[in-house]
């Protein structure tokens, strides 16, 4: 019964999903109530997980693990979900997508991510992954009267189903070679001597790369980001990325540990390609959501550069990178939810033209966020890149480091272009003055973290250092 505690978050999560579903069905216009309950659920979950943070255990005949690493990712997912939920409330209500299912599906996808992160078994992993993906398809097409939103959901579904198929094929091949679906057993039985094992590994990598939208499996990202309602995009850009990177690290660390020599070149290629494409393709974008899509592709490239080292320092740097990436993106979307002219939300970069004269606070926040995304010191984004390249150069992967850093210069160009529009161009139409406590709070906290991170960078790294990665 002791071990029950470690599965408690998932049980609690599923129970509350059923409960809120009932409330939603029986009470009319229940969006407000359901959302409030869900806030409470998420906060309670954070407390439960935080309570057993450092204990590690495996359950269900080694199919499920819970340790400080998975707990860290789970808390990161919960915290960022609660922020994406609160900042998008106004947007959801004003765009009439306040169906009570919205937050419930969101919770379902979080449940999927939990299962996926904690899984220590191919089957459990696949179940979690699919639960997460199916919820995300629905979220993407949530604005059901909007053609773009439908298109986004359908596109995401078709491409993602293909990737899942490949992944499943890889899993079955892997089972054939290892004789087990358990991660640790796979690790013992796989040594890379047979080319079939490598093929299985590549198929699984393809599926994983698709989920984190790394090049060359990134095609869906810009369309889905642009087509989905902004509230959903803010969730897409942050939360599934955390889960994706978490499962990436777990896969590279346990089942594929013996195949380092085989997956390392592949990951280096994926990460380089993502960095370069993310930098180059974003230059021509006019829509800010599309731009964020490309920028997130680039950032995933940097995060994967840490994974591609195949050593613990690298994984740690990736975890730090993704944590800072989450903060930057939350702040960015908080700004997007403030971009409203004459009652309408706008998404074009040209809409930002000259707003520094009328909306000075919003502009200075955007300035901080964009320079941080570009990785200019002393902002937090620089430290994220710094740790990753520390790990990369330690492993003597100089080509990756140099190309990666050069592509930050290219990507700096399009971030600077937005700053140019905000600060150097003439004012056209100022934004409406939106007073929203949760958005301002999110923006304030995240910008404060980005600016003051340099004072004591060890604060975050100390937490990451004690996570059980081995």
């Amino acid at each position, binding site marked *: 019964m002791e071990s029950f505690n470690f599965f408690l978050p998932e049980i609690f999560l599923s129970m509350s999903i059923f409960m809120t579903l009932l409330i939603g069905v029986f009470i009319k216009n229940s969006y407000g109530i359901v959302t409030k309950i869900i806030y409470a659920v998420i906060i309670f979950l954070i407390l439960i997980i935080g309570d057993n943070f450092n204990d590690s255990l495996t359950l269900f005949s080694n199919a499920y693990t819970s340790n400080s690493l998975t707990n860290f990712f789970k808390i990161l997912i919960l915290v960022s979900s609660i922020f994406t939920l609160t900042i998008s409330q106004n947007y959801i209500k004003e765009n009439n997508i306040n169906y009570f299912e919205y937050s419930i599906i969101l919770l379902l996808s979080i449940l999927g991510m939990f299962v996926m992160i904690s899984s220590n078994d191919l089957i459990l992993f696949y179940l979690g992954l699919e639960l997460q993906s199916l919820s995300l398809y629905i979220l993407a097409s949530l604005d059901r009267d909007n053609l773009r939103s439908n298109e986004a959901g359908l596109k995401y579904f078709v491409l993602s189903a293909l990737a899942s198929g490949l992944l499943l094929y890889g899993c079955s091949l892997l089972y054939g070679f290892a004789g087990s679906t358990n991660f640790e057993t796979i690790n013992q039985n796989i040594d890379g001597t047979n080319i079939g094992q490598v093929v299985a590994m590549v198929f699984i990598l393809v599926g994983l790369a698709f989920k984190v939208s790394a090049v060359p499996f990134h095609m869906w990202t810009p369309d889905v980001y642009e087509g989905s309602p902004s509230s959903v995009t803010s969730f897409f850009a942050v939360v599934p990325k955390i889960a994706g990177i978490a499962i990436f690290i777990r896969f590279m660390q346990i089942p594929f540990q013996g195949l380092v020599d085989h997956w390392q070149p592949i990951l280096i290629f994926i990460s380089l390609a993502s960095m370069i494409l993310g930098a180059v393709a974003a230059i021509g974008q006019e829509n800010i959501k599309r731009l964020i899509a490309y920028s997130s592709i680039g950032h995933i490239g940097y995060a994967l550069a840490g994974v591609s080292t195949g050593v613990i320092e690298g994984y740690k740097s990736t975890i730090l990178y993704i944590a800072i990436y989450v903060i930057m993106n939350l702040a960015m979307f908080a700004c997007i939810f403030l971009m409203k002219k004459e009652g309408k939300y706008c998404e074009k970069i040209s809409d930002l033209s000259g707003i520094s*004269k009328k909306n000075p606070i919003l502009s200075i926040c955007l300035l901080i966020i964009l*320079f941080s995304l570009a990785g*200019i*010191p*002393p902002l937090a984004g*620089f*430290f994220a890149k*710094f740790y990753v*390249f*520390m790990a990369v*150069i*330690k492993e003597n992967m*100089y080509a990756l*480091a*140099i190309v990666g*850093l*050069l592509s*930050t*210069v290219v990507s*700096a*160009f399009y971030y*600077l272009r937005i*700053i*140019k529009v905000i*600060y*150097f161009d003439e004012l056209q139409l100022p934004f409406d003055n939106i007073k929203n406590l949760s958005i301002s709070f999110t923006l304030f906290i995240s910008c404060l973290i980005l600016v003051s991170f*340099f004072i*004591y*960078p*060890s604060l975050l*790294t*100390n937490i990451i*250092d004690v996570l059980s990665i081995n």
Partner: protein
Amino acid sequence: MNFPILSLITFLPIIGAFFIFIFSSDKTESKNSIYVSLFTSFVNLFLAIFLWYSFDKSTSEFQFIEQASWINGFIKFKFGIDGISILFIVLTAFITPICIISCINSIKQRLKEFLIAILVLESFMIGVFCSLDLVVFYLFFEAGLIPMFLIIGIWGGPRRVYAAFKFFLYTLLGSVLMLVAIISIYWITGTTDVNEIYQIKIPEEFQYLLWLAFFSSFAVKMPMWPVHTWLPDAHVEAPTAGSVILAAILLKMAGYGFLRFSVGMFPVASDYFIPFVYTLSIIAIIYTSLVALMQEDMKKLIAYSSVAHMGFVTLGIFTFTTQGIEGSIFQMISHGVISAALFLCVGVLYDRVHSRLINSYGGVVNILPKYSMLFAVFMLGALGLPGTSGFVGEILVLLGAFQKNYLVAILASIGIILGAGYMLWLYKRVIFGKLEKKELLDLKDLNYSEFSILFILAVLTIIFGFYPNLILDTIHVSVDQLINNYQTNLILSTLK
């Protein structure tokens, strides 16, 4: 000395900027922000002068050291100064209040933001000269890009966007290679503390590539000949105060970087690359002087002359003689004063006539006598007339160069002649001649604040010219230590 005076000097301007940001939100209160910024920058100037006064000139050790554990305990936040850095700190603290005074009249829009940007920039610049850790140095070195980008982009001239982007991307491109080198140094030596790296000595086979990586960053910032093209654009488009800071301090970060890092950490590679640096310096001196001769725009002319003067600095550093290195440090300080003054002089005319083209002036001496007198001092300083600070720097660099290589020294001397050519010609076309342009007739001479700034700068130019020991005394011991270190390292490497 337990009091953290270096941190205070570094972060005081940011605190001032923060106060301006918080407390003077209303547009009508720009007076408040002016007072706050002036107060902070003057306090900083006094602190810097106090620091110079209490600085021990008889030792080459780093002084006023402050350190704290910073990144995971393996990288320290370390501040400290020696004879070379103290002068740049004083220069920075001295130039900033001048910029603030000069911008009060000339900046018409968003003055408050401008003052914030200048103060933040001052913090970062002082941080560059204080830091004794490579990562801390890089942090400040790069962070300075942000406020400068905004200064050029928001308050600049018609092509400001192009100039701001060019400035930012050029510098960033050079610097990322330096970041790779810094991280590599950490993994080679196990530390990024500059003083420890001096002791550990980086193995010879790594030095060459690392030197090139650092060079790529400093050469862009300096700027050296083929990567200098961002400078004229940035200077022309930046507002007067921006040009002053750019010329007087930002360029000096590269010269300082060469001395502190390239020469100090990679002596063998520095020796190996001497011919390369000489070639680029000579091209910079002669080619950009010729280019400067043909400029129509006053700011562009001074910008090109800056490139030529910086050519002297790199030449002097890489002679590795006492005279050469002291000369190049002196040249940097003197150029900091003189180029700042020249840009202010152009700014004075620009504020009145709104043109920087040489041919829209002529005969200015008839209506602006005080201005013409002061301009003459700076013009003569820039061309290196004996009795001005420009002369001391150039003669010392040439003395150093003659000891090493006759051809280089002779070619560099040609640069001085060309320098006299373009400066005198500029002065003749703008100041002398008949007053023919109608729009010039009702110009007013310097007002009180303009006169006092230019007067102080002129006095400094002449004092440094007649009494160079004021500066040379401070740097002497540190420069000797630098050269000793270089020579022992070279001997060690030949013994192997």
